[in-house]
């Protein structure tokens, strides 16, 4: 808990930076403003984002643009079945030194960057996918007993194609849990498409008119750490995560019916951090219940492991989370059923 609350003049610079970033993103990439907002929230929360959508929807463009705006190093790995962990993390190469001795010199892989686009991550073998676990959680790479930290900040923005399942390896739950958000890329409407065709020749993106300096980004991260999370809100997050578990006190009927395993404590942390980022974007020094509701869906929709009954009944995690958010009383007032509180 923060000991002090940010004053308006302390919060305002960070909020303006975040809003400028979002404006640039919305200006460069047309449509999907809410998605841009969530991606930025994920980055400000120092989380990794899994982008799921069909080819050609602009996933790579989004990541590249973010890298440009934040002035961060950006690399892309196209995951394939024959991709090896060394191709991602780096490898030791035997080199001859000036003294004539031969020694193994570490050649960093593409993971040593600030923003890593792991394209079609589910096409890589589990072995290669597992190579990402340490990098995503510890922000470091350990090879031959030597741990090397990754440059900060470090974000993984991975994409996966939901329809071409042949020759793919579904991400294990341990890796899915390391992604802060799973965001679904859907098609843009005709108006946006018309705007893209008419304003973007050959799909070329305009250059950003403003870029965030490294110091500004650090200041933004520092400010976000001071966003206050009230106890009722933290209790709400905890109750929400608890309610995703089978047989929990506040678990809904669909949860008990369809969920095999609920969300992990990492999910609760992710919601709290993402809610802070959302509050910062909104220009508030504290987190409200609405912040939690906005970020709960992308945080939880890849963390619930459903049973076979859910497949039969065409139930998915998004519907379950939506039901939970609708039914769970945020404030925990435990008002009698016949008493309601409504806005004036």
């Amino acid at each position: 808990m923060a000991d002090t609350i940010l004053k308006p003049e302390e919060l305002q610079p960070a909020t303006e930076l975040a809003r400028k970033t979002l404006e640039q993103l919305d200006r460069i990439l047309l449509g999907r403003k809410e998605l841009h907002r969530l991606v930025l929230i994920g980055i400000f929360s120092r989380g990794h984002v899994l982008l799921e959508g069909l080819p050609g929807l602009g996933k790579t463009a989004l990541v590249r643009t973010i890298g440009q705006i934040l002035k961060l190093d950006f690399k892309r790995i196209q995951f394939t079945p024959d991709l090896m962990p060394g191709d991602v993390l780096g490898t030791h190469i035997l080199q001859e030194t000036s003294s004539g001795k031969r020694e193994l010199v570490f050649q960093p892989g593409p993971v040593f960057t600030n923003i890593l686009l792991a394209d079609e991550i589910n096409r890589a073998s589990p072995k290669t996918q597992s190579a990402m676990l340490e990098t995503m959680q510890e922000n470091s790479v350990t090879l031959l007993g030597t741990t090397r930290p990754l440059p900060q900040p470090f974000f993984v923005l991975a994409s996966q194609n939901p329809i071409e399942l042949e020759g793919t390896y579904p991400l294990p739950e341990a890796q899915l849990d390391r992604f802060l958000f799973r965001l679904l890329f859907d098609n843009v409407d005709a108006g946006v498409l018309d705007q893209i065709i008419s304003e973007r020749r050959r799909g070329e993106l305009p250059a950003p008119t403003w870029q965030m300096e490294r110091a500004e980004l650090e200041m933004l991260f520092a400010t976000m750490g001071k966003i206050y999370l009230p106890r009722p809100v933290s209790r709400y997050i905890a109750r929400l995560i608890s309610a995703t578990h089978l047989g929990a006190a506040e678990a809904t009927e669909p949860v008990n019916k369809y969920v095999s395993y609920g969300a992990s404590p990492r999910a609760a942390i992710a919601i709290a951090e993402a809610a802070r980022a959302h509050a910062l974007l909104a220009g508030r020094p504290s987190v409200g219940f609405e912040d939690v509701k906005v970020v709960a869906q992308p945080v939880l929709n890849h963390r619930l492991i459903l049973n076979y009954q859910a497949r039969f009944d065409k139930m998915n995690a998004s519907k379950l989370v939506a039901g939970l958010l609708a039914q769970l009383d945020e404030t925990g007032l435990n008002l009698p059923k016949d008493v309601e509180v409504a806005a004036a």
Partner: protein
Amino acid sequence: MPRLESLLKSNQPIRAIMNAHSKALRTFAGRVRRLFLLRAGIQAATVWFFIWGTVMLAAKMAGEHQTDWFALGLLGIVPLVFFAASRIRRRLPSFESLRAQYDRTNFCGGVVMAEEIADMTAWQKNLPAADVPKLRWNSGRPMLLFSISALFAATAILLPERFARFSNHKSLEIGQIVQQLQAEVKTLAQEKILDDKKADDLQKQLSQVQKDATSNDPAKTWEALDHVKEADSDAAKQAAEEAISKTTAIAQAETLAQAMAQADDSGMSDANATEAAQDLAQMLASAKLEEGVLNAQIPPELLANLNGLNKEQLQKLLKALEFNKNSLGLTVSNLAGLKLIDAATLAKCLNAGLCTNGCDELAAYLCNCTNANAMAMCMKLGKGGPGGGGPPAPLTWNDGASEKDLKFQEHALPPASRLDQAQLVGVSRAAPQLSDAEIDAQHGALDNAAGSGGSAHLQVILPEHRQAVQKFFEREGN
């Protein structure tokens, strides 16, 4: 976690200066407290009204009469208040929760909640306008239950006791007694002892008594049955007395008429015949056979010509008198069959006016008597005449009386004089209070038997036990 009431009193948690949101939050907390109070009060009152009404109904069914239910109901408010207060104390939400609710409802984004740790005055201008959240109580069901319970309690207060007892109705088995009384009334009506209207009234009264008979108040039923029984007995006794009187007169007239018939054959003088005929006419006139409930019927042509009856008319008169006597005897026998009169009365009626000496002497006297006045005196004396009573017999006290070939006439014992003189002064369920003298008179030899190891037990048959006792003694084998 601090409770709302203490927080409202202490002002501790609200660190910020009083601003619009703080005022609105206080107002909201006050509304929540009042709503919870009202809600708990309604619930407690609903429960209390149901309990109160149920207790009242149960007491009324049990026959409790003199309880001030309204006062008791008001006394129940005291535990009601304690009950509601305890419920409020346990269920009232914490101030922290209410503040969170206020924050959420007003879209304050956690700023109001942050007042918990810091002064948020600087952020007030960024917040939406302060509005007190509205509390909506879906009071339909609780108020419906409250109304029902209140109505139930009011009904229980105002419900007459007879309706409360109706629900606890236990019939009293009086069918046999009613049947017997109906048979009595029917017989009395058939014998013209009771007129039709009176008989109908009694029959209706019996039916109503049987219909209304409950074991809750058996005394009332028994009193009504006793009333009918008494009416039947009075009418029967009156008829029996009348029958005795008329039978006596008819028997005397019959004896005289038989004697006149015999004397006429034996050559009775005209003067004597006239005197006897006048006596017969006076006798029948004074008997007033055509009056009363048991009116005997003598052919009017005979009554009109009593002074000049020929032999054939005299025989007709004799037959008419015998018919009426038999008719009266049959009526009285019917009454005795229904036990409306005792056997002594029956015997008295059947033997009324019998001439033990026969009428031969009277016929001879009518033939031989030359003094009409003497004859008239003799007639007035009743039965017998000169020379009656048999020859004188010597009186001896030495030999014991022999009972050989003797037959004793059975007489039912007359009811005790105490019962004859009894009067209904009231009905009580308790054992009757008897004076020592009465107990002595009843117990006889068993009185003062405590010294021999036992004591006489005074067994009082209460009205509601009468039928059971009666059935016991009417069993076969008794």
